[in-house]
């Protein structure tokens, strides 16, 4: 199985601060990888660097083997390299359906406006927003906005999906629903890089966890190991939660 | 001709320009409103000063504070009654609103003042030093302009109002949660802007003839200055004003008055592109 997305020594600095520093990893086709790390570690910046929002100051981004380091966001989207926003960004005064149709039309493969709407409708049903298809995006509740974000990125029929804290602000039960959705997305053969502070998500979804700290990868491995990793506990989990999660893993 | 003389001309003109632009910059920066009324405020200040002087004979320097106070009231009122209602609307809406208000004010002024040029004619003569000739009235104007600017600077930097203004600019709702009366602060800000415009008008009337037709010109200058200097209230306007004054002064001599103004505009456009925050403006005001 081959790497669909590969980062080679990617760095991104803002003036003084190196938000991302010499990060390298491979995302294999069809796998779900989690990216965790303290606030300000550089996770969002990394996503921005991959999708061309902020071009890396050093290093290479390879998508399906080809160099896309200097691409523009819209190009990334068209290639099938979709992402969601940590701060959800819908088109507020369009209906939910139009929002998704936009992605289908421009990010997906060129189709007519009409087709785009049909495609959008399908994706909405898939994420379970069919019932609110015609209400303005601004009227959605937070979890539904997150689902909308997912639908939008799915409508671009992506190969890789970068999820930046799509579950933040959901409570444990709501998360269960979200997990199921993400699994179904993965089942469609989409490779996923998921950023999350909710360990429940990380632990139950990912086959592999990357830990970012001060812009650098400090650890990498299966979830079960990570919750015991001293560095990770020190930098990220903290003793109390580490204990809680270790229990959960043991329980599961 | 003397380099010093050109520079001097430019600097004097520049300070007056700064005085013209400050209020505009403040409203733009804080309320995020492009105030099309600004030019007319200045003209109004000029006319009021002229008539007060013409009928009472009191020195315009003494009249200035009253004119300023009057315009503060006007500005506060307009903001509180009209602009506040749409202050968070997109630029097109607010700009159009202030334009409509300006049409009214302008019409009132043409009816009551006519377009006849008015000038407070007090001959102060001039000073000469190192071959540089400086009209005294301009020096006075410059002095007043600087004084006002400094005053405003201190107020904004040190006073609670100053801090409140900054907070409101950044995030209305969060500011409200700090116990700041947002609408009041907006109105105050607009009032201060009008006040500065009125004062600028007074100063202007001591040096130049004012006519209603100038309001458009003043507005244009304010645009240019704000963009060149940047929206940071006082410092931006000061730098922008001086820059423009000096540039126009040199351009006028080197490539002829014909193109002097064009140079200013072109510079502005260039800055808009390469440095939207202006020469000294703080990033994030955009």
């Amino acid at each position: 199985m081959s790497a669909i997305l590969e980062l080679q020594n990617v760095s991104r600095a803002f003036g003084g601060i190196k938000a991302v520093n010499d990060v390298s990893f491979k995302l294999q086709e069809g796998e779900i990888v989690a990216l965790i790390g303290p606030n300000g570690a550089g996770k969002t910046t990394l996503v921005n660097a991959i999708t061309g929002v902020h071009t890396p100051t050093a290093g290479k981004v390879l998508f399906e083997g080809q160099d896309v380091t200097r691409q523009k966001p819209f190009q990334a989207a068209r290639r099938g390299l979709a992402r969601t926003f940590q701060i959800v960004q819908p088109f507020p005064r369009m209906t939910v359906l139009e929002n998704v149709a936009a992605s289908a039309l421009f990010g997906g493969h060129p189709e007519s406006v009409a087709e785009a709407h049909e495609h959008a409708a399908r994706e909405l049903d898939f994420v379970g927003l069919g019932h609110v298809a015609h209400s303005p995006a601004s009227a959605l509740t937070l979890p539904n906005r997150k689902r909308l974000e997912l639908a939008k990125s799915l409508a671009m029929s992506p190969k890789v999906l970068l999820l930046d804290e799509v579950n933040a602000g959901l409570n444990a039960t709501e998360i269960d629903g979200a997990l199921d959705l993400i699994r179904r997305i993965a089942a469609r053969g989409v490779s996923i890089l998921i950023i999350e502070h909710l360990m429940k998500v990380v632990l139950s979804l990912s086959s592999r966890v990357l830990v970012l700290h001060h812009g650098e990868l400090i650890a990498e491995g299966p979830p079960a190991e990570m919750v015991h990793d001293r560095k990770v506990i020190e930098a990220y989990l903290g003793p109390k939660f580490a204990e809680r999660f270790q229990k959960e893993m043991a329980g599961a | 001709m003397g380099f010093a003389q050109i520079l001097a001309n430019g600097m004097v003109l520049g300070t007056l320009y700064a005085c013209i632009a400050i209020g505009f910059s403040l409203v733009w920066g804080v309320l995020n409103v492009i105030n099309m009324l600004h030019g007319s405020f200045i003209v109004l200040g000029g006319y009021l000063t002229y008539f007060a002087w013409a009928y009472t004979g009191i020195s315009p320097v003494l009249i200035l504070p009253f004119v300023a106070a009057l315009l503060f009231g006007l500005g506060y009122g307009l903001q509180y009654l009209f602009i506040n209602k749409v202050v968070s609307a997109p630029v097109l809406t607010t700009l159009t609103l202030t334009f409509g208000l300006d049409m009214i004010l302008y019409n009132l002024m043409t009816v009551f003042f006519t377009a006849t040029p008015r000038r407070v004619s007090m001959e102060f003569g001039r000073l000469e030093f190192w071959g540089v000739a400086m009209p005294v009235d301009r020096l006075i104007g410059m002095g007043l302009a600087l004084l006002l600017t400094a005053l405003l600077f201190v107020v904004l930097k040190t006073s609670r109002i100053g801090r409140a203004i900054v907070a409101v600019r950044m995030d209305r709702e969060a500011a409200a949660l700090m116990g700041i009366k947002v609408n009041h602060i907006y109105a105050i800000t607009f009032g201060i802007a009008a006040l500065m415009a009125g004062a600028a008008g007074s100063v202007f009337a001591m040096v130049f003839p004012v006519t209603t037709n100038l309001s458009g010109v003043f507005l244009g200058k304010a645009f240019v200055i704000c963009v060149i200097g940047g929206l940071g209230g006082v410092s931006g306007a000061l730098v922008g004003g001086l820059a423009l004054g000096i540039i126009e002064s040199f351009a006028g001599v080197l490539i002829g008055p014909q193109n002097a103004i064009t140079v200013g505009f072109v510079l502005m456009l260039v800055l808009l592109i390469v440095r939207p925050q202006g020469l000294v403006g703080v990033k994030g005001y955009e």
Partner: protein
Amino acid sequence: MAKKSPWPLIVMALWVAALALTPVALGNYEVRIAISIAMFTALALSWNIIGGFTGYPSFATAAFYGIGCYVGALAQRAGVPAALAWLAAAAFVGGVSFLLGSIVLRLKGHYFAIGSIALVDISRLVVSSWGGVTGGGNGLNVPLLEGRPPEVSALVLHVMLVIVVAAFLANLLTDRSRLGFGLRCIEQNEDAADMVGIDTTRYKIAAFVLSAIFPGAVGAVYASWVGYIDPTDSFDILTTVKVPVMAMLGGAGTLLGPVVGAVSFVLLEELFWANFLEWNRAIMGAIVVALIFFLPGGILKLDWRAILRRAPRGKPAERKTG
């Protein structure tokens, strides 16, 4: 996406036909009013593409219009037949707007507004400083159109109407094509638009150019009609602000909004100017103010589509529907 009703088309067709008939039905003065209605309708429709659909508060209309005036005038003085001169003007302005657009469209919000206003002033200053070619402050005499007054006005009116129709079609196609869809996305959230794969730069420039060529043509036609143009009248800041106001008055971002807006505005202006000499400017101002407060979405606000498309004011969620 709103459903495509045929009504805008029908209404528009009837309206244009009505205007086209004024020369046979009414006197020259009314025809002249019809002409200025047509002129401003064309301008407002053009503005609608950049200002309405794309949500970029452009005040560059007068720049395009003015450049159009001069290109048309100069071409005609150089012996180019009127019709060709008009097309040339449109084409030239299109090119200019492409260049200018790729510069000023990097700006957003207030900065774009200022930038676009600056375009008007700069073009005016350039035209007046460039006396050798443009006659500077002296202005330019343009060869008068041949024919008796009624014929000339009728001709001008019909040409203006052709431009109106063209501009309207441009709006229609934009509205119903992926271009329009993309522009509306940009209007609502440019970053997100970028994210869903819209080449925002290209789309914005396209919109800017579309909103420029028709004013260019209008200017050229106007020039050969009045027979004399000068910088101050051609690059008039009042024109540049009036046009967006008209579009908003009718309903920016809608198809018929600019049309309705232009008509009502011009007629109102006629009315007040005829009856309140001294105060007409103040009255227009009052109307503008009232418009902002009482018709924020424009006259066509009641059109339910406008509810989804109009510029955001106050809490968006207060307009929850569905």
